[in-house]
């Protein structure tokens, strides 16, 4: 039986859907989008003995990558910071071992300073009694580890790809009407292969341009930062264990350790500047990064705050072009949120529900926190005989806690972004002072840090 299960999984996993073996006609959970967040949910359902038996379907346009040996090759451009809370989710789901160092890199410090030399904050994991502040892993590594875990799960997870969602039928829902009996019809999804399956719960994990969200008619709010982010892989002379972030006049630049001596640059800047930076050779780009990190004024003693923070400043490493790495790319920066995360028989997770500015590396971690919460809600439902697609369940045990948490983070990141928005003069020195105050006040600083680490 177990053998048959695995074969079926591999079959549907490897082959295009049109030739895949028959899908079940009813699934407990149908996850649309097997990106990092969707795959993490499929894995997390294996964490509890009661949700492990749920019949799960994952649909994605692209297959999950295969796991590979810890690489010596340059890492891929897309990387994610993993907070200790996300790491815990992976440990509980059994996926952590395949993405732990040396496949990823730990960082123990975080240093944030600005271009005007007005302030610097340095955070260390040791300050809060933790061994690390977090990890940085390539998205591909995270996905491959999750795929490996899915394949080794005892019960059936059908992963179909390449396949994409075309239609979605949800039970009738009129929140404003006291319509008496609420429909509890199962949801139905239609794939591009023409196949349809029914599900007790559909999860939209299909990213920021979620088709699920659109088909479910959920409204969103969003605004553009009129900026683009440049991502690039660079090399440092020595392996680095600090996440560096500097607020430049044009926006923040982050340098994150990836693995070995590789680091990842995420540089948010104006659209025009991004265009210029993207066109540079890797060597010329590395020079620009060094200038951005080391130019301007280094933090000096702030006359308004004697003895505050400047003494904790450590100069960032020099970066070099990473031979053989993909050249730098850029993407638009925006904030987006879905007004609601749930409908009867529907839940949105990850970027489908919320997209934040990448400056604190929180994006995907908010999605992983969604996953932990939703998986716990489903476990509770199974144990108490509740319908896992019940709106009340999804509202109370998933949407309410996650929406307030995500809104808190979105507001925090957005205001931080605005404080550090490109400008000179008074505001710049004010924010320098702000950083110093932050560094001086241990309590606030520890709270912010624990929050960023997902342990608050």
């Amino acid at each position, binding site marked *: 039986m177990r053998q048959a299960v695995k074969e079926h999984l591999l079959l549907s996993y490897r082959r295009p859907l049109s030739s895949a073996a028959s899908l079940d006609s009813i699934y407990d959970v149908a996850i649309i989008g097997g990106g990092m967040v969707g795959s993490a949910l499929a894995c997390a359902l294996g964490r509890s*003995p009661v949700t492990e038996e749920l019949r799960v379907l994952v649909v994605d346009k692209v297959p999950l990558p295969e796991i590979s040996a810890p690489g010596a090759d340059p890492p891929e451009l897309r990387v994610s910071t993993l907070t200790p809370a996300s790491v815990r989710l992976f440990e509980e789901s059994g996926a952590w071992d395949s993405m732990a160092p040396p496949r990823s890199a730990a960082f123990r410090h975080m240093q944030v300073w600005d271009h005007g030399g007005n302030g610097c904050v340095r955070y260390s994991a040791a300050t809060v009694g933790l061994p690390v502040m977090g990890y940085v892993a390539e998205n591909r590594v995270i996905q491959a580890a999750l795929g490996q875990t899915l394949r080794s799960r005892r019960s059936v997870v059908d992963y179909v790809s390449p396949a994409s969602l075309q239609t979605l039928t949800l039970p009738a829902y009129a929140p404003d009407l006291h319509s008496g009996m609420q429909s509890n019809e*199962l949801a139905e999804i239609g794939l591009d292969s023409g196949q349809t399956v029914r599900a007790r719960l559909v999860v939209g994990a299909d990213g920021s341009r979620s088709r699920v969200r659109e088909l479910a008619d959920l409204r969103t709010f969003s605004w553009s930062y009129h900026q683009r982010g440049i991502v690039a892989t660079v090399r440092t002379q020595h392996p680095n264990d600090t996440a560096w972030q500097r607020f430049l006049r044009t926006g923040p630049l982050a340098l994150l350790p990836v693995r070995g001596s590789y680091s990842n640059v995420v540089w948010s800047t104006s659209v025009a500047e991004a265009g210029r930076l993207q066109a540079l050779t890797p060597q010329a780009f590395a020079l620009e990064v060094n200038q951005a990190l080391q130019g301007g004024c280094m933090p000096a003693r702030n006359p308004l705050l004697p003895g505050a923070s400047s003494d904790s400043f450590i100069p960032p490493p020099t970066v070099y072009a990473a031979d053989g790495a993909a050249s730098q790319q850029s993407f638009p920066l925006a904030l987006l949120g879905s007004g609601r995360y749930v409908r009867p028989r529907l839940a949105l997770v990850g970027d489908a529900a919320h997209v934040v500015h990448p400056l604190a590396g929180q994006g995907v971690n908010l999605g992983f926190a969604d996953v932990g919460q939703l998986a716990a809600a489903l476990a509770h439902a199974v144990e108490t*005989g509740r319908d896992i697609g019940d709106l009340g369940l999804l509202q109370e045990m998933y949407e309410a806690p996650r929406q307030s948490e995500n809104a808190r983070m979105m507001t925090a990141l957005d205001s931080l972004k605005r404080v550090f928005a490109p400008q000179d003069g008074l505001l710049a020195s004010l924010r320098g002072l702000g950083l110093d105050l932050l560094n001086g006040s241990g309590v606030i600083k520890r709270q912010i840090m624990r929050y960023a680490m997902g342990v608050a």
Partner: protein
Amino acid sequence: MSMGAALSSSRGVHTSRRTHDVPQPSAAGTSAAAAQGPAGQSMDAQEVAKFEAMASEWWDPDGPNGALHTMNPLRTQFARDAICLAHGREARTVQPLRDLSVLDVGCGGGLFSEALARLGADVTGVDTSATAISVAATHAQADPAVASRTHYQNATAEQLQQQGAHFDAVVASEVIEHVSNVPEFCASLVALTRPGGSIVVSTINRTNRSYAVAIVGAEQIMGLLPKGTHQWERFITPEELQEHIERAGAERIGDSGMVMNPFTGHWTFSADKAVNYIMSFRKPAEQQRNP
């Protein structure tokens, strides 16, 4: 709402989860154990009429039965644990009630029945309201896994007893307070249970507090319920319930108060049994009675 323990007794007393909810004037409970036919002698025909109007609103969580929706997970947990204890099963597993037959007396629209069916039980739901039974049967159809494990009948406990039916467990939730002959009703619950099986009853206590909460609060001040939904004199204390069931031949396993936080609508178990409570019993196995 300033009541300390928010009430709810399904077939009638409904607190709404949100205190500002405007009650629907037409709201009325459904029959539960009220009988229409001559066989339901212990049932009160007036009760049937009072509740019939509400049947279609069984499944609206914001409707008059909102409190039942929010209480459902808690009473399901209690019943699951009691039934598992009596049958020597682990409770926190997938479908812990798999293959056990359960009778839900006064099943109404099927809230409790569906939850028990999802836990794996093969559930028979009976109610004296034909409307409630058709609501329950219709609702179950949407999910084949639920439909295949629920069977609804427009009948009374007494009628099933006359047919000689037996179940591994019998539950009667928020119904006994609407029954006119309580000792007879309790005797049928026990008679319908197989030796070694369990019985779970939840209801509303007869105390000054329950009077304040269910009658004065919900019916008179808040207008949540039409006046006359409940007759406080019919409420049963835990001691009385225990006495009736034990006299009929089953022994008490355990009990708990259930209280609702009026602000969150969230129900929790409590030592406080002054308003809502739930109690479980076990019918001794055959060999113990006839050694």
